[in-house]
């Protein structure tokens, strides 16, 4: 039975890198497959046996959506192939050359009692070998080199003294690895095999039997994990770069559910094991942000509830402003990922999704196979290692722009920076280049309209809740006008951020509902909306506009909204409900910095 490439691709996606037997089987199947047109040409050269590496790399690349043509170098062929410009390697014209160097390549070492200077010059000499090799390979046009560093062996002839004297072999290998890093050219990426081996544990890494029998440089068990690291770098070269880490909140950044336990009741106590583990995770995330990873939150929560711990819980290491995008609502997370991609203006394929809930992970995997979904362990102590093992942010290099990028993507922070530049607030609003679209409720937006009306607590004049059915009925009644307001600025597309329900009551236009998302406060959206309310009142030939403020625990924000727009207070009842009125004729037109479409 022959498996098609896309079937293999689908299967390989669901296999974890340590299931090496499964991977090898798929690799064998992929090998027999007549490859479709290759996206990239990869040459693998080395001193040990390369067959397994080449076979498995090919199939793991499929996991990243890359179809590769791979050149398998000759056994122990590095010198022969690199330093002969007429070799098959040069004829192949690879885009990427993988150099699998091995500690066994080194045949000469410093002698006992060599001075430090002698050792250093030895290192330099060996380093020059790598430089020369890279120079030669760079003659292949546009070629990028993935250079494996040396895994220091288990043997220590001098025992513990190997770390006690500078002329030891162990120190020599270590210095040589550092020398490679120092000398690396722009088109060279060092692959840290020494690290991979240390994670596996060297007793497991080296399989001596397989080496003697087949010259395998490391145990077959590691083949998937190793190839995955190389494949990811190749994916990066092809522009498949992960930039943004999307996090859940409850039981991911803190223990427990904030809606149940409150912002102070959640587990973030540094003096308790569990709390400490969550805080460690937060610290790690913060360090990711500081090195240029964009952070986002997608949480099934009310926005206000989700945000509260960041404002009120002093144990929290991550602050609200560390996140470039913060989505807390009741939408499914696959949809929210799209919304976030829009907001941040990056592709969903640059997302890494971290959520403790397997159901959420499943839905994201299903709708967005391009998103890297981390298999989050149940054990919170392993959160950091789970992210490390998946190494999604293995960038080819890091630039100062990467670091500043997190800042510029932090839309809110960016707006704040902008704010500092402008002394005049109006000037700032102007620089935001806001655009708005106000219009009657479109059927497609019924869900969002209902959601905003039923979820808004702060900017909500009367806190009337309506079902989707009721709202739908209103749209077909001549006595109701339902308006939606969309907003975007140079940083973000906010979508629908305000909803209004107007009701004609004889010669009065009554503001039944007026809600707005708090994300767009202080931008004069309310003034713009008022202009439209007046327009509707004129269309209805009403004389007055009436409105009410019904106080709740949460809506103090809009207590002065109506008087500030020029309404007069006409009545206050004993529940605190205030009734306002405004003449249509005298209503003033508000100028704003928002361009209307």
């Amino acid at each position, binding site marked *: 039975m022959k498996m098609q490439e896309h079937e293999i691709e689908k299967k390989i996606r669901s296999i974890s890198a340590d299931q090496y*037997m499964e991977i*090898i*089987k798929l690799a*064998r*199947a992929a090998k027999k497959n007549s490859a479709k047109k290759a996206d990239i040409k990869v040459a693998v050269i080395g001193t040990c046996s390369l*067959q*397994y590496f080449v076979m498995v790399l090919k199939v793991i690349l499929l996991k990243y959506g890359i179809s590769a043509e791979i050149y398998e170098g000759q056994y122990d062929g590095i010198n022969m192939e690199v330093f002969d410009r007429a070799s098959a390697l040069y004829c192949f014209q690879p885009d990427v050359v993988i150099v699998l160097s091995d500690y066994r390549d080194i045949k000469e070492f410093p002698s006992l009692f060599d001075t430090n200077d002698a050792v250093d010059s030895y290192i330099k000499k060996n380093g020059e070998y790598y430089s020369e090799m890279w120079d030669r390979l760079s003659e292949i046009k546009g070629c990028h080199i993935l250079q494996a560093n040396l895994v220091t062996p288990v043997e220590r002839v001098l025992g513990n003294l190997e770390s006690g004297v500078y002329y030891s072999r162990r120190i020599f290998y270590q210095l040589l690895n550092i020398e490679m890093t120092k000398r690396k050219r722009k088109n060279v990426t060092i692959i840290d095999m020494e690290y991979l081996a240390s994670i596996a544990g060297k007793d497991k890494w080296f399989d*001596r*039997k*397989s080496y*003697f*029998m*087949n010259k*395998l440089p490391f145990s*077959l*068990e590691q083949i998937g994990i190793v190839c995955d690291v190389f494949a990811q770098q190749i994916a990066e070269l092809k522009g498949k770069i992960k930039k943004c880490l999307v996090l859940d909140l409850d039981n991911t950044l803190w223990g427990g559910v904030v809606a149940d336990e409150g912002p102070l009741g959640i587990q973030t106590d540094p003096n308790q094991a569990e709390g400490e583990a969550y805080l460690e995770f937060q610290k790690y995330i913060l360090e990711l942000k500081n090195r240029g990873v964009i952070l986002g939150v997608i949480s099934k929560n009310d926005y206000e509830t989700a945000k509260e711990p960041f404002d009120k819980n002093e144990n929290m290491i991550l602050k609200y402003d560390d996140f470039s995008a913060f989505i807390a609502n009741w939408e499914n997370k696959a949809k929210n990922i799209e919304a976030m991609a829009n907001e941040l203006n990056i592709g969903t394929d640059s997302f890494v999704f971290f959520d403790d809930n397997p159901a959420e992970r499943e839905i994201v995997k299903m709708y967005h196979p391009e998103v890297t979904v981390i298999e989050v362990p149940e054990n919170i102590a392993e959160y950091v290692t789970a992210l490390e093992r998946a190494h999604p942010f293995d960038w080819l290099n890091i630039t100062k722009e990467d670091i500043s990028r997190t800042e510029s993507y932090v839309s809110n922070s960016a707006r704040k920076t902008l704010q500092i530049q402008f002394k005049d607030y109006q000037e700032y609003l102007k620089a935001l280049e806001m655009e708005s679209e106000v219009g009657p409720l479109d059927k497609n937006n019924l869900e969002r309209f209902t959601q905003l009306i039923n979820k808004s607590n702060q900017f909500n004049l009367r806190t009337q809740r309506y079902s989707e059915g009721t709202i739908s009925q209103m749209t077909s009644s001549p006595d109701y006008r339902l308006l939606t307001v969309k907003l975007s600025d140079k940083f973000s597309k906010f979508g629908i951020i305000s909803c209004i329900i107007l009701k004609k009551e004889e010669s009065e236009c009554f503001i039944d509902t007026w809600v707005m998302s708090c994300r767009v406060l202080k931008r004069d959206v309310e003034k713009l909306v008022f202009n439209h309310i007046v327009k509707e009142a004129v269309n209805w030939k009403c004389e007055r506009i009436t409105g009410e403020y019904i106080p709740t625990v949460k809506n103090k924000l809009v207590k002065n909204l109506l008087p500030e727009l020029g309404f007069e207070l006409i009545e206050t009842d004993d529940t605190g409900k205030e009734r306002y009125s405004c003449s249509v004729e005298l209503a003033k037109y508000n100028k704003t910095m928002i361009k209307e479409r």
Partner: protein
Amino acid sequence: MNIKETLEKIFRDVFEDEDIILTESTTAEDIEDWDSLTHIQLIEEIEQEFKIKFTLQEITGLKNVGEFITLVERKLSN
């Protein structure tokens, strides 16, 4: 399942060929994909299945499936 049947299962799995039938005299010549690489894979699978570890000298001397079976029997009885 006796040792031969278990080996057969592993061989079928590794070579992805349900038609493989092992006899004591089966050698690498008889199975198309049985090369030095698949040999390592076979060894790994057999070691895992029977929870045994072969020495280098044990596996380099194997001539046919019969010897494989004898070797596994001996390791298991130790």
